[in-house]
């Protein structure tokens, strides 16, 4: 499944989306850059709360298919600008890590029921 499809189903808002055709091979969650460096696999969609500029560098280095910024403050504009420059897909969501992971996991496992869960 490509990044565009993932973005559509999860309702993600693109901040930089230079490669919507990128194939999403799996998912990875961490708020720690060192963990992402050590443990993420190429093609993973990385779900994180971290909005640091270095997120873009890690995503690029690890050849991740996209970065999903979980709920939280708007990242600084230079983060999106850097992502565009480096060719990294950067999207944001109002949902937290648990929910994003839950829905992406189901989506990648081919579960048709990945519509947003009833909230509250």
């Amino acid at each position, binding site marked *: 499944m490509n990044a565009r499809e993932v973005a559509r189903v999860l309702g993600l808002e693109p901040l930089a989306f230079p490669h919507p055709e990128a194939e999403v091979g799996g998912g990875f969650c961490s*708020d*720690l*850059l*060192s963990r992402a460096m050590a443990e993420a696999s190429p093609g993973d969609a990385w779900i994180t*709360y*971290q*909005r*640091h500029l270095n997120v873009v560098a890690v995503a690029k280095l690890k050849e991740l298919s996209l970065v999903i910024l979980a709920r*939280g*403050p*708007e*990242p*600084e504009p230079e983060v999106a600008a850097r992502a565009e420059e480096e060719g990294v897909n950067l999207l944001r969501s109002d949902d937290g890590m648990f929910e994003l992971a839950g829905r992406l996991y189901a989506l990648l496992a081919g579960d048709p029921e990945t519509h947003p869960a009833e909230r509250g």
Partner: protein
Amino acid sequence: MSPGAIADVGAVSTQIRRILRELGVEPEVVRRVGIICFEGETNIAIFTKGGRITLMVWDDRVELFFADNGPGIEDLELVRRPGYSTAPDWARELGFGAGMGIPNMEKNADTFVLRSRPGKGTAIRATVWRKGNERQGSSAGPGA
């Protein structure tokens, strides 16, 4: 109480929670004071070489004072902005640096006063009212 090393982060807030519970303070107030204290002591541990936290419990409110002789804060508006953080990499690797600490403190306090002198230090006063959710509480009891 004096927060110290980063490994002790949370020690003051968990201790304060126990004190407040023993005093019969309302659970919701305990929770909010716990969150405020956790964020405040974290900041003292990360950004300064030490400081003091004072807890005052009144019939109508709980107050927390944070004081440190750290580097101080240049722009008081900037640090209140969600997401703003100068946390060093080592702190980020320990799970800090979301830039949500001061916003979290402010949100959980009924009144929140932040004062700082660059080069001298930072002082914070946070008040949580115990009865109802009066925002601008009258000052019953001895003043602070």
